[in-house]
Each structure stands twice: as structure tokens, then as C-alpha cells.
């Protein structure tokens, strides 16, 4: 039963990940990424990490996917036209990816004693909170500083209006010039 559930979740994650990298429409790719992240959250819950699963759903499926969709929409060249996926290096990229997968899979399968039969005690959310705020409190505070810095940096980068910027000529469809009233004389 557990193996079946794992197979279903793993299949969902893998197929949607392939859809992310193969779909020509960027909005669809982002939505497929949401499916991948949700399947991963289910996997986290199956692996006893319920808090991380909740964070994954709230932060990623809710936040990052929305942010990405905004990013795609803001930088879209033509309304309603899918951006074509360019595949110049597709075969080479597939070869590299398969090579890396082969090496890593060989390393995993060749390592003995990975699947030890002993079942360690499960980590509860209370344990996680204690570990975060007691043993790792310095890293915790450093991460909050990092998030602040990222927020300020993103605002500064996205707000800058430099004079060298192109005026986005592709953005505006060539509107038919409105004939001015009384311009004929």
C-alpha cells in the first residue's frame, strides 16, 4: 500500500517535472511546477515531515507559483501568444542530464547499507521548533536578515529606471492613428 502510494506520488512528480521543462507555454510550465511542488509536499508528509509539507504548500504552491505567473505575465511579449520553446541544444542537454543521472544512480545503487532496517524515532513538529530556535538560532536569524536583504535588493533592482532602457517597442501593438478632428484643412 505504501509502495503503491509512493509510486503514484513519484510518478506525478516526475511526469509534471518533465512537463515543466518541455511545455512551450511558460504559464503552463509554471502551473506544472505547482503540480511538482505539491507532489513533493505529499512525499514530505509521507516521510513524516508534516510541518515542512505544510510550509511547502503555503509558500511554494501558494506563493512562488503565483509570483512566477506574475513574472511571466509582466514580461510577456505578445498577449495571448505562447512563447515558443527553443530547443537548440536539446539532444546534448538530454545527454548531459542522462549522464549525470546514470552516475548518481550508480553511486546510490553501489552504496551498501543505505536501507538499514532500523526505524529511528519520528521527528515531531515540536522537536523541529526546538531544534530551530535552540541549536540553530544563529542560522535562523541569519536567514531572516537574508530575506530582508533579498526583499530590498529585489525592490532596488526592479525599480531602477536607467536612461539606457529600450522603450519596449514590441510591447505596444501598432494602433491605428486616430484622425484628428479638423486636421484636414
Amino acid at each position: 500500500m505504501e509502495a503503491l502510494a509512493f509510486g503514484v506520488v513519484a510518478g506525478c512528480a516526475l511526469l509534471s517535472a518533465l512537463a515543466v521543462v518541455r511545455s512551450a507555454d511558460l504559464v503552463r510550465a509554471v502551473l506544472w511546477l505547482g503540480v511538482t511542488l505539491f507532489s513533493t509536499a505529499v512525499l514530505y508528509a509521507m516521510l513524516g515531515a508534516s510541518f515542512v509539507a505544510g510550509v511547502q504548500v503555503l509558500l511554494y504552491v501558494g506563493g512562488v507559483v503565483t509570483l512566477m505567473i506574475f513574472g511571466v505575465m509582466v514580461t510577456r511579449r505578445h498577449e495571448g501568444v505562447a512563447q515558443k520553446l527553443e530547443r537548440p541544444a536539446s539532444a546534448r542537454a538530454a545527454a548531459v542530464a542522462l549522464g549525470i543521472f546514470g552516475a548518481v544512480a550508480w553511486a546510490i545503487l553501489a552504496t551498501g547499507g543505505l536501507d538499514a532496517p532500523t526505524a529511528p524515532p519520528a521527528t515531531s513538529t515540536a522537536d523541529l521548533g526546538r531544534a530551530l530556535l535552540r541549536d540553530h538560532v544563529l542560522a535562523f536569524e541569519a536567514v531572516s536578515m537574508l530575506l530582508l536583504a533579498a526583499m530590498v535588493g529585489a525592490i532596488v533592482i526592479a525599480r531602477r529606471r536607467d536612461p539606457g532602457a529600450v522603450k519596449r517597442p514590441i510591447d505596444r501593438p501598432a494602433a491605428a492613428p486616430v484622425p484628428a478632428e479638423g486636421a484636414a484643412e
Partner: protein
Amino acid sequence: MTLSTCLLLASALFCVGVYGLLARRQMVAILLSVELMANAANIVFIAFGHFRGGTTGQVFTVFSLALTVAEVVVGLALVLLLYRRHGDTRVGLASEMKG
């Protein structure tokens, strides 16, 4: 569901991300691929935490989630800047600083 199957799944997801990183030219699509790779790394953390015990795996995953969100936010700001400057978001356009 054993540790090695979880690791195999994570490496497969990571390699899908590698493929996307190499094959796509749109900057947003590359960000999505990086997301996939970070996600695969998180699966490894959680799997080791579950099958080996201890809180360290989950703690690392929480930090990794925060780092990835920061990376996405800054990355999208850069995409927006690239779009303002060039009117497109293909990575080949951002070659001004090449020596």
C-alpha cells in the same frame, strides 16, 4: 519506500532540472528548472532525516526553502530588469558584461 528509492527519485528530478537548465533559453524557464533542482535537494534532506533520525534534515530543509524563495525573488527582479532593457527575456541578450 526505502531510502534508496527516495534518493533515486530525487536524482531523477534533479536531472530533469539539469535538462531544463541546459535546453531552455527563456530566463523564467531557467528559474523554474533551478526550482526543480532545489526541490530535489530538499527531498534528499527529508529522506535522510526520516530514515536516519534526528531533526537536522528538516532544519536544513526549512533553511533551504527560505534561501530558494529569496533566490526566486531576486531572479524575477533581474528578469524584469532584463525585459525593461531589451524587451525580451532570453538569456543570450544579457551579454553586455562579457569580456
